[in-house]
């Protein structure tokens, strides 16, 4: 249980970092230039990612996944 919490907190820290770097901070009008890599795309929006963390946990615990 404790290890799960630590793993989850590491994942969340990375998500928090990516959310900040890609989605927050001072904006330069019209000059945000970001290409999207074909692979290794990590940013889907924190809300979506957190949903997927939930989904994974449901899978691990064997509980049925309810689509919302």
């Amino acid at each position, binding site marked *: 249980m404790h290890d799960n919490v630590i793993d989850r907190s590491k994942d969340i820290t990375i998500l928090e970092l990516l959310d900040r770097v890609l989605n927050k901070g001072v*904006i330069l009008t019209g000059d*945000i230039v970001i290409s999207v890599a074909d692979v290794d795309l990590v940013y889907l929006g924190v809300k979506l990612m957190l949903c997927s963390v939930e989904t994974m946990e449901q899978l691990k615990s064997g509980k049925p996944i309810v689509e919302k």
Partner: protein
Amino acid sequence: MEMMIYAILSLKNYSGNLNALLVNMQDNDGMNLEAVSFDGIAAVVSNIEKTSVIADKSNAIAYAGVIETLMPYFTLLPMRYGSIMESTVMIEKMLERNHDEMQQILEKVENKFEFGLKIFCDSEKLRSELSIKMQEDTIAPTNHSTETINSVFREYVNKKLKEHRLEELMLTYVDSVAAGINEYLDRWNAISKFKKMSTAANIIDAVFLLDKDKKEALIRAVEDLQKQHASLTFILTGPWPPYNFVDFTIK
């Protein structure tokens, strides 16, 4: 070749050699960082090819790494990843154009850290507990005619009413947890932004901007709150540069 901007720094309290400091810091592509300064503020930049600005994990982490390395030395405004201008001359003009607003925001975030707090619950368990509480609190219904009790319409309304009450109870519960956090934040004059019920499990997603010397007190407060709400999981992250408190678009 374009210039990637990492952060805007206040040079007000910095007496060292900025360029010497930056020479020792290299970004992920091994390019040297340099400073473009104007009247007490500076932009930290590096040369970059536009095509290499890809929003993948390693680039974003490397970009954040540069900003975090600067954080102990300067009050700074972190830029969003992908902020690019064509030349140092344009960056200098941009600093000049936005100087006053940047100074104001730099003053607002001076000597402060950002922290993130996410609170998770086992949503099914919490809903089930609240549902039991709701049933206990509900006054037994008065007798109705058989016709009314069996009505499909009545069943539907009751079901919706129960769902609505359960949502209300959830929100009241989340508000009570948030109130416990706000009690501390008010004491420290912290600025905060709260999102409630982002997902079924993430009941609170908050960010705070507070004085650097309150870091230990915040950690202790979160530990206390965790003890008070043993069924919830509190995850505190930071200190971060003030990403969530620099609502500013450069002109």
